[in-house]
């Protein structure tokens, strides 16, 4: 039987804390969502000052990355390059700020961030994932 790694609540807390620290260092107020490889929410924090919309968008960016196993930026760039039909992809939020969590070559989930500029959202998500080593 094939086995695969999976994120624990403890992993999520570490990822989230590191992402939050990155945001705080830059005085950014964001929402950070972590989802499993099925696109199901594992952990969420919305920092003081981040909006209700940020909460929803962070989850959707994270879900896009977790389920498609690639950065949500990939989808954004495809559309920017003229593939307008990609706008209709079911369940895809094609905006930078969602990254897959890859462990031992396997996608175990995704991290989505929303609250600042999209490339800054991604910077926060990357800082969170980095703690897994």
């Amino acid at each position, binding site marked *: 039987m094939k086995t695969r790694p999976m994120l*624990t*609540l403890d992993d*999520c807390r570490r990822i989230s804390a590191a992402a939050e620290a990155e945001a705080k260092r830059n005085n950014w107020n964001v929402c950070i969502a972590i989802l499993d490889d*099925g696109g*199901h*929410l*594992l*952990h*969420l*924090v*919305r*920092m*003081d000052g981040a909006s*209700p919309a940020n*909460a929803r968008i962070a989850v959707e960016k994270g879900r896009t990355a977790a389920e498609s196993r690639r950065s949500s930026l990939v989808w954004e760039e495809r559309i920017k390059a003229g593939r307008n039909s990609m706008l209709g992809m079911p369940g895809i939020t094609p905006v930078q700020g969602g990254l897959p969590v890859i462990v031992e070559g396997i996608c175990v989930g995704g991290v989505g961030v929303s609250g600042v500029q999209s490339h800054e959202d991604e910077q926060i998500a990357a800082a969170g994932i980095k703690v897994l080593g």
Partner: protein
Amino acid sequence: MKAQLRVAVACVSACLALAAGAQQPSPLDAVPEKMPNDIPYGTPISLERAQAAIAAAVGESKKRDWKLNVAVVDSGGRLVAFARMDGAQLGSIAISEHKARAAAMYRRETKAFETGVQAGNHYLLTLDDVIASRGGIPILDGGRLIGAIGCSGATGSQDEVVCRAGADAVKR
């Protein structure tokens, strides 16, 4: 022929009696002087307190070896913090958030809906975004509603115990 007529008359009388019975005053017709759950909305809960509530709830749940989903929403019913414990069931992710949201939006514990429906007040299920299951509790600060916590994954009674631990840890 006469016997049949008598039966028919008896049936009509019985029906009228039933209809008259249905017109007896309903307890829902009562007009209390004061409105219930007249709790003002306050400043939305901070992330720090939301996380303290979640930590307390997860701690209580862990102590009992239960695996739950715990959600905290602000006074607008929107998610502020969420945690899924290892092994918690997936269907309860949305339920925990729903319970928290309903507790905030209706300014009462979701147990109130459950109790009402159990008592036969099925109209409660027609109210918008109601969830008639215990385990959603408002979080108050100085008499104002600042958010709510919702737990799901075990029985309603187990969800409620964990939920209460979370709510009690941060109320003021």
